[in-house]
């Protein structure tokens, strides 16, 4: 049986952040994830914004962790070779009452410790954001807002955690949790976790199961919160529109969300969204006509020229909300259990700060933390041809011929990048897409899918009919014509 000091349930950005942070210490750590790859939950479908910390109540946990997370994320990105772009954000107001609201947001942000906040006027906006509607009266400028690729961040955290000894179990769905009565084992295991891949024991259990955190908590005996999914639909635009804006554009926030945004993404395509609508089903990732209309009409108030013909992709994500704030707590009633739940936005930003908080909770509750002599802090940066100039590509092609073998025409992804992605853990077409961008461009896989299927089959030893889009049940082809 697999036995660990700590089991982390959930391989999203929160679970992988926690696992990596704890892998600095002499601990046996297991991470259990029900999907075939990491980051296939909420962490793959969000806006990718590293928020500065504004738009949060001053007394909230999420506000505090967001401000702290914004700083930590930069450092971790540097260590892991993840691109972090500090593009800055503008919260735009259109009238006098809006401008007053901005003053309030600025004051609250400063109280939370958000640095360098500034109110800018319409002249500033005309100069620095020329496509913005000329009805804009002014904006709150938060220069520390940044963007990253959220899934690559989670993958690289997971990869680095594994390098530091964390054992990652995929396709491992937690189905039941039994509490082991005290003193029955010498090692003081408190939890027996039954999964689709057998049983695991742990002294401490960290529940970072995103949308399913309430169910996991219930399995462990704590039934005091409920996760309500709040859907956000997002629409990606063609790369040609990359320079439509130079900053992230926000409207004034509403009670439940930061509103519909004009987003810059780390790979260049602008994105518009998200909507915010409560849904029942934790797996309802459908997009809707209403969502599209809502997004278009909202963002056109800021950028009137946005053209729906430029949409090349869309998706929906579900915010795992439980009330208005995050839950990060040690459950005294079930010693050893830490719930990390309700991690809605800004959970991507806050993840590294959440990890530190979890570490402190463990320490406070009896876990001895001894640092390893050697912690692999760094990770070699992943090569993306689309992100380097042709002169650099030329050198790469000389070093490895497969960099010259272009697989994806829209995003210029080479066979070498694809085989590297597979070596680092990609097992599905979506996994390749998130890691390399092959299939993420304007033709949406029309050109490269056949080649990717073959490379995946060759590299993994699987048959093409067993290759999936995102895990079991999502096989791409139904039959090999040569099998009769």
């Amino acid at each position, binding site marked *: 049986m697999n036995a660990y000091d700590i089991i982390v349930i959930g391989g999203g950005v929160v679970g992988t952040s926690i696992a990596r942070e704890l892998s600095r210490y002499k601990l046996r750590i297991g991470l259990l994830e029900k999907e075939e790859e990491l980051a296939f939950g909420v962490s793959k479908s969000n806006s990718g914004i590293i928020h500065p910390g504004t738009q949060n109540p001053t007394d909230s946990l999420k506000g505090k962790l967001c401000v702290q997370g914004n700083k930590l994320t930069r450092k971790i990105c540097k260590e892991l070779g993840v691109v972090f772009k500090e593009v800055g954000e503008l919260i735009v107001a259109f009238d006098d009452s809006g401008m007053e609201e901005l003053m309030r947001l600025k004051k609250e942000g400063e109280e939370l410790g958000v640095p360098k906040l500034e109110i800018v006027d319409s002249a500033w906006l005309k100069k620095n954001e020329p496509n913005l509607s000329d009805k804009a009266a002014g904006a709150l400028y938060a220069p520390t807002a940044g963007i990253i690729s959220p899934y690559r961040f989670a993958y690289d955290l997971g990869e680095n955690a594994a390098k530091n000894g964390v054992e990652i179990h995929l396709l491992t769905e937690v189905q039941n949790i039994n509490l082991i009565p005290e003193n029955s084992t010498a090692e003081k295991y408190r939890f027996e976790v039954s999964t689709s891949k057998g049983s695991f024991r742990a002294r401490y259990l960290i529940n970072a199961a995103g949308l399913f955190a309430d169910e996991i908590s219930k399995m462990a005996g704590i039934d005091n919160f409920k996760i309500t999914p709040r859907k956000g639909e997002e629409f990606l635009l063609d790369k040609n529109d990359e320079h439509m804006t130079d900053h992230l554009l926000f409207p004034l926030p509403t009670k439940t969300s930061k509103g519909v945004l004009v987003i810059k993404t780390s790979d260049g395509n602008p994105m518009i969204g998200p909507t915010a609508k409560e849904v029942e089903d934790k*797996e309802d*990732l*459908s*997009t*809707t*006509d209403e*969502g*599209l209309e809502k997004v278009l009409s909202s963002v056109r108030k800021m950028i009137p020229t946005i053209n*729906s*013909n430029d*949409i*090349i*992709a*869309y*998706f929906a994500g579900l915010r795992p909300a439980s009330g208005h704030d995050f839950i990060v707590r040690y459950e005294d009633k079930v010693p050893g259990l830490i719930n990390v739940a309700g991690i809605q936005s800004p959970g991507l930003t806050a993840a590294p700060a959440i990890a530190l908080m979890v570490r402190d909770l463990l320490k406070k509750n009896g876990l001895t933390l001894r640092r390893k002599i050697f912690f692999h802090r760094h990770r070699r940066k992943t090569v993306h041809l689309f992100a380097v100039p*042709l002169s650099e*590509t*030329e050198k790469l*092609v*000389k070093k490895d*011929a*497969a960099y*010259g*073998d*272009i697989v994806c*025409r829209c995003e*210029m992804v080479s*066979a070498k990048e694809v085989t590297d992605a597979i070596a680092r853990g990609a097992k599905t077409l979506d996994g390749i897409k998130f890691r390399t961008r092959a299939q993420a461009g*304007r*033709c*949406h*896989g*029309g*050109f490269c*899918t*056949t080649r990717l*299927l*073959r490379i995946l089959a060759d590299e993994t030893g699987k048959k*093409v*009919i067993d290759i*999936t*889009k*995102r*895990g*079991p*049940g*999502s*096989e*791409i*082809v*139904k*039959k*090999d*014509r*040569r099998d009769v």
Partner: protein
Amino acid sequence: MFERELVIVGGGPAGMEAATSAHKSGVRDILLLERDQYLGGILNQCIHPGFGIEHFKEVLTGPEYADRVIKQVTSMPEIEVSLRSFAVHLTKDKVLTFMKPGILENVKAKALIMATGCRERTREMIHIPGTRPAGVFPAGLAQKLINIEGFLPGKEVVIVGSGDIGLIMARRFLLEGAKVKAVIEIQKKSRGLLRNIVQCIDDFDIPMYFSHKVSNIYGRNRVEKVSVIKVDDDFNELADSYFEIECDTVLISVGLIPENELIEMAGVEIDKKTNTPITEEVNKTSIPGLFVCGNSFKVYDIADSVSRDSAIAGELAAEYLRSLK
């Protein structure tokens, strides 16, 4: 960097015809780049008959048509063919960068012909809402999967759009033993060739719905069903007409987009609506000595017309090269 009289990008019928025609007009230094491992372009996956009726006065399949043109190309030793060669960058001075395994080259072309074909319009471009499961394919991709790779993408198919590729694929799936449950076309009639409607749809009694659209795609991991709704002349949905079709596959056949990103990069004026060069004359662009032919110049219905018009590109390039001397 090296120099060439004439560089042609794309080894489909257009690029090959332009090459042989330039050769016939006296050009003797021609480099033909093709990103695939064989010449022929999209013809290789069109294994159905219906090609060459005008150009060769015979009914051929796509690969047979391609073979004939390839033979002409290879009979002219001054046409150098470089396969697995992917053009990735172009400047207004006609410096073209291409990559192949182990190599990144810059070539300065005195004259350049782009014959890069089309890509397919996607489900995303027509904004079909719903989930994003496996089983949604551009029709041309499904064609390649069956005819070239040897895999059947699905067993119960709904086809969105009644363009030629969709019609041909309806028959192709049927012949492979799959069920084609419906072809859904939002317009009042098909854009496809009459012969394809008769031979691919009517002859097989495939239900065809005009003035209907797929309003949603369902399924978490794999497509499970689609919903369909009738629309009026202004494409407004008629609520009472809603129905659902169970299927595991949705083919998207809603048109082609000329691939002109490289010439756009070089500064050629492009019509945003059609993604083709703005010009009065066939195959010409706003940059002298830079020509575009075949499906990247405009979307053609049949390969024969591609061959006919692409020959002009070869002649224009030859004429341009003479004017430089």
